[in-house]
């Protein structure tokens, strides 16, 4: 942001202070993530920058912690990754279907007590996780689903649906209902109209809701801590256990992989958001 030439000095000072402050905040936001990347390639067993690393000596770097992550003896990450992916997959499908269908109902202008239903359906997002974890644990223990994949998937569906409901409702708010009426007048039945007209139009919202649900499940640790047995361990649980014992370079390697994954998700979500805005004609 260039300032006009005639700007008085005190405004100039103010302006550059403001920019510096903003720069520092951005640095504060993003820099901690980048500390992890180099440390995961550390050749030594310690979590600090060795003198060889700082001198950019190739000997200071290695892939041994990635090897340890994949092939290490008593390696928990394989099982954890498998469990995390299975749980997140089913939780995402469940949340997306339930959330999208509910959002369709909530967006209808005929829906009675809309605000009350909305508040109830997004309540899992507002209630602190520790409370959700406690309550869900009592329930799952009672019905015998504690320490099962099913129990964890069900609780992650609960935690994921609010995001789907919110994103899909937002997409539907810009939805032109005359197209569905047009489809009906041309003889299409409601299911057909939904599959061929409505769904493709609200797809960006559905997918970004699904992404939220996926990330929620994939990162979720509080509820899983209450519910999981040894067999249901997930990546967040293993990280939690590892971080409580000792910071190890292997955890840095896992964290790096997770950062790469979140970058991919971010790019997807951004592309979808732009597409959705373009479709809704916001960004013309």
């Amino acid at each position: 942001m260039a300032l006009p030439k005639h700007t008085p000095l005190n405004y100039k000072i103010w302006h550059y202070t403001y920019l510096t402050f903003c720069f520092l905040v951005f640095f504060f936001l993003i820099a901690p993530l980048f500390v992890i990347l180099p440390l995961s390639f550390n050749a030594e067993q310690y979590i600090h920058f060795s003198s060889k690393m700082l001198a950019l000596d190739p000997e200071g770097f290695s892939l041994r912690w990635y090897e340890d992550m994949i092939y290490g003896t008593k390696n928990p990450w394989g099982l954890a990754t498998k469990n995390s992916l299975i749980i997140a997959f089913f939780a995402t499908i469940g949340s997306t279907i339930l959330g999208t269908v509910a959002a369709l109902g909530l967006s209808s202008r005929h829906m009675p007590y809309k605000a009350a239903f909305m508040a109830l359906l997004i309540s899992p997002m507002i209630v602190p996780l520790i409370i959700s974890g406690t309550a869900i644990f009592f329930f799952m223990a009672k019905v015998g689903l504690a320490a099962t994949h099913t129990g964890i998937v069900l609780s992650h569906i609960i935690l994921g649906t609010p995001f789907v409901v919110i994103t899909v409702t937002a997409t539907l708010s810009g939805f032109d209902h005359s197209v569905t009426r047009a489809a009906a007048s041309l003889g299409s039945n409601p299911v057909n109209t939904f599959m061929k007209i409505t769904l493709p139009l609200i797809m960006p919202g559905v997918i970004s809701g699904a992404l939220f649900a996926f990330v929620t499940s994939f990162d979720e640790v509080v509820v899983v801590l209450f519910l999981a047995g040894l067999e249901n361990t997930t990546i967040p649980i293993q990280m939690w256990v590892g971080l409580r014992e000792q910071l190890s370079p292997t955890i840095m390697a896992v964290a790096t992989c997770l950062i790469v994954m979140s970058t991919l998700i971010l790019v997807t979500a951004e592309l979808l958001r732009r597409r959705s805005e373009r479709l809704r004609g916001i960004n013309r």
Partner: protein
Amino acid sequence: MSQEKILSSDGIPLEESLKKAERKNKLKAVLLVAPLFLFILIIYIFPIGDMLFRSVDDRMITKMLPKTFIAMEKWDGQDLPDEPVYEGLYEDLSLLKKNKTFGKIIARLNYEKSGFSSLIKKTIRKIDKLEEGNYKEQFIKIHKRWGQSEYLVALKNTAPNWSYAKYLKGVDLKFDEKRNIIQQDEDRRIYKTLWLRTINVAFWVTIFCFILAYPIAHLLATLPMKYSNLLMICVLLPFWTSLLVRTSSWMVLLQQQGPINDLIVWLGWAADDNRPELMYNVIGTFVAMTQILLPFMVLPLYSVMKTISPSLMRAGKSLGGTPLVSFVKIYFPLTIPGIGAGSLLVFILAIGYYITPALVGGASGSLISNNIAYHMKSSLDWAFASALGTMLLVGVLAIYWVYNKLVGIDNIKLG
């Protein structure tokens, strides 16, 4: 002019036909919402109700000593009770011994009054040797505490099925022997400190987030798209990154041999052998939580600022306002919905935060959630964990309610 009703094509009055269609549409909408509603009701709302129930449920002793309590109803609680109470005790305890289920009752009674543990254990050990009749005398012979009315009063005090004792414990209060509410013993008063610390941390994290987020949200909203999109990544990447990854990066940064401490030593602010503790205390909790929750403040602020037309500020200036005056009188008031939404999100998330304080907070930086988890997983006092959880829940819902009254909940937006 005829008063005839307008008919639709199939001969039914239009009004009725419309009403019918309306009902049908309403039913359709409700049916669409129903699956998720029922799902959340059964797996989420009922369990939370169950949690409330557990926090006040105190039927265990009543169930385990049924005959004793029936006999006790006739006792005034002044002098020692008469024979029937001891007879009831004899029958109940014999049954407990036979079923080997007296462990829980010992813990519960000893919590009510210390000394019960040895009393019950000794009684149960010797209960088979008792002869029929005159139980009162025989009980006192087994242990002299059966002859002290304060123990029997304490026992009688556990009779009600419902108790809010756990809630009193949650604010450092308790019942004395005469059921008066008094302060907890000095060395056991920890919960008031914990609540105050939790609120304090949540409050200051919200303030810090606001101070850091406001300028960058403004920058993001006013820069041309191609720059702001790039900078937006700095906000969104942490937002999408796993909480544990972000916490572990703070553990790397804040550890004693970590980069921040290196920098402090290099700058000469501290000696190398006297590095400051940045982690496992409340500093760690503050710094890490502020960075982790910052995106939740930036995004609502950004989405509000994006809608404010820059011409408003220009108009303010052209009317003679200095930039400061135009900002205070025009820009700032327009951003209040964003400030409200962001602060609500950050405060509510912070007040229930568990993972980060548990990893970087240590003992002095742990919050109420950590205590709830401790009682759920280690001390196994689920009733107390439920009581603390309920208190936290009521607090969060109250904040939510106030916010809804002041700003309106519809302003919450994601990304």
